[in-house]
């Protein structure tokens, strides 16, 4: 493992009105690892995800993505509120104004963080291939004139995107469904398509929000093979939320456990399995349920 992590989250705090959803969460995701975020229901896992991927604006804390020497502050690109110090520092003011005008969660993806959703969000009335082409939007030739005249360079750009789309369809084993509407696919295939779509944006870090939810045991095994394949062959780091403990213990190298908005433990699967705090958190809720 390298010394600088790919993603470091420091002091992340999130308030919804009077509710403290996350309280001083710290964790790191090492480059090239598979890191899992687990915890009982309502622990704040998805909130962490939404903060990291830019769908919530964190109340406090730092989320930094380190990538090949330069680092991106994932909170800054969302557009932050002006501070008093900005009014005496024109360059800081200009930067904040720029991100306020042009920033947003799409910037987080452009920085190299892709995600999937707990409740699948595909473009349901577009075909499977089109879903993957939309994901490559930023890498395509978007010039209107070249596109209308269908010039050579435009065609080449579209062809590259199509080849890439078919490549990913092969990886997730959906080539036969290429020209079906995404909304018509079976549930498991929709999950895999969403992962392929996230990968089409060429991310450094891919965040999977409960990828195994609703899958049968065979599909879950295929999924873990796929996740490993992504990490090993496509140079991507994986951060996932999952309730399926078999999957989590099987594939992750590092586990962060959340409970009531706080990190109660982090470490390798072996360490987590025997950690008394984790056992208390999980068994406590299970007893409560029963």
């Amino acid at each position: 493992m390298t010394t600088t992590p790919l993603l470091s989250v420091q002091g992340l705090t999130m308030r919804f009105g009077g509710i403290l959803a996350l309280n001083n969460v710290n964790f790191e995701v090492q480059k090239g690892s598979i890191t899992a975020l687990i915890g009982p229901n309502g622990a704040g896992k998805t909130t962490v995800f939404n903060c990291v991927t830019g769908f919530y604006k964190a109340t406090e804390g730092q989320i930094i993505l380190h990538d090949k020497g330069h680092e991106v502050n994932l909170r800054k690109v969302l557009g932050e509120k002006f501070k008093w110090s900005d009014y005496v520092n024109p360059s800081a003011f200009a930067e904040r104004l720029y991100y306020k005008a042009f920033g947003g969660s799409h910037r987080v993806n452009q920085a190299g963080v892709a995600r999937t959703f707990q409740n699948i969000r595909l473009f349901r009335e577009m075909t499977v291939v089109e879903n993957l082409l939309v994901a490559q939007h930023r890498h395509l030739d978007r010039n209107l004139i070249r596109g209308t005249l269908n010039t050579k360079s435009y065609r080449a750009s579209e062809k590259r995107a199509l080849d890439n789309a078919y490549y990913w369809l092969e990886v997730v084993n959906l080539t036969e469904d290429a020209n079906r509407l995404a909304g018509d696919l079976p549930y498991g295939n929709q999950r895999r398509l969403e992962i392929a779509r996230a990968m089409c944006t060429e991310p450094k870090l891919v965040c999977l929000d409960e990828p195994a939810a609703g899958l049968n045991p065979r599909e879950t095994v295929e999924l873990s093979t796929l996740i490993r394949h992504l990490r090993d062959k496509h140079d991507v780091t994986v951060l996932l939320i999952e309730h399926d403990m078999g999957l989590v213990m099987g594939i992750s190298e590092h586990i962060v456990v959340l409970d009531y908005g706080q990190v109660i433990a982090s470490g390798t699967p072996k360490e987590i399995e025997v950690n008394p705090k984790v056992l208390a958190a999980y068994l406590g809720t299970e007893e409560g349920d029963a």
Partner: protein
Amino acid sequence: MFSNPNDPPVLAAFKDSLLVGVIALLIFGPISGIILDGYSFNTHFKTPLILATIVFAGRFAYQMAMLTPWGQKFLERLAFSKGKRSVYVGSPNDHKYLWIILLVLFAAGLILPFYLSKYALTVAILAIIYVLLGLGLNIVVGLAGLLDLGFVAFYAVGAYTFALGSQYIGLGFWTAIPVAAALAAIFGGILGFPVLRMHGDYLAIVTLGFGEIIRLVLNNWTSFTGGPNGAKAAEPTLFGLEFTRTAKTEGHIPFHEFFGTVYNPNTKFIFLYIVVFLMACLMIFFFSRLRSMPMGRAWEALREDEIACRSLGINHVIVKLSAFMMGAMTGGIGGVFFAAQQGGFVNPTSFTFFESALILAIVVLGGMGSTVGVVIAALVLTLLPEVLRDFSDYRVLVFGGLMIFMMLWKPRGFLPIRRPYFSKEGQA
């Protein structure tokens, strides 16, 4: 209420009809049973009773009809068409001979004006203007999924750009087209920016307000726009040739004198028809290309799921703005032709909310996002009222009925949406 699930179907139908009849009696009682006479009133017990009996009989007949095998089949069909998706993926050889059909239609469209009367020509020009407007709004509503109830504002901007431009700075017909397109696009951007955070109903209300603002400004800024008296645009010309009997501008030659033919008042409209027809064809080509280009795909993706779009690094602000501006641009071009078709005279009464509603109806009837559907719907909705002049009193009634039936049976429009087929080699 008082029906029992174990009742035989005929009895259930009777009870249901009776309930409907009683409700009708309650409604019709005060409306038609009490008629004012000076300061007192007369009671007519018979009228509401007759009306309620008609409602009861109608309902009962409907219920009985639905019990017959024919009615059952009808109900089944209805349920089936509701569940069916109105989107399908094309197959590679779908449109092999499409270009022949298009070529024939194009040629027919070009020849048509020479066989039309002046009245028919103006109607045809108006119909094609509505095709343009429908195409423009189709981008905003059909592709990008942003409900815009004030589209007529851009139409007005286009028409007034031509009229006021020629009044104040001597703008000609040909220059007015790009200028109006650009100006309408700017207005689209101005409207688009504040409403970027809005969805659905809220967006619709803001755009509705925007449309009214433009109309009210045009109506009340008398010193600049001429207010309700309207404004006058220049006559359209072709390479400096005018279509009037005698040249209106110093140094211009009328068309018929240049070619040494007899003056024909239709020439101007034939000219306008051909220009607007070519413009519409160009736009149809442009928009059908656009649909398979990254920008068009991003619009549709935005309609499907905005959050997913953002998670894929697509800047939803730019995508929305581009849709607004592209749609507004088309509306502006339509406005220039409208001003020219009106003999150069425009006034604010042409740009009421009813126009916006009509354009929206074109897009909805045509099937949100389907270019062919929009073209057909625009032609039908503008030509049909002209053909049915005798029934003009019932025009809006028929219109309302048509919309209700559409929403019930074909909520996604007459034509199903076709998605492009991509083989490994490329788009088919």
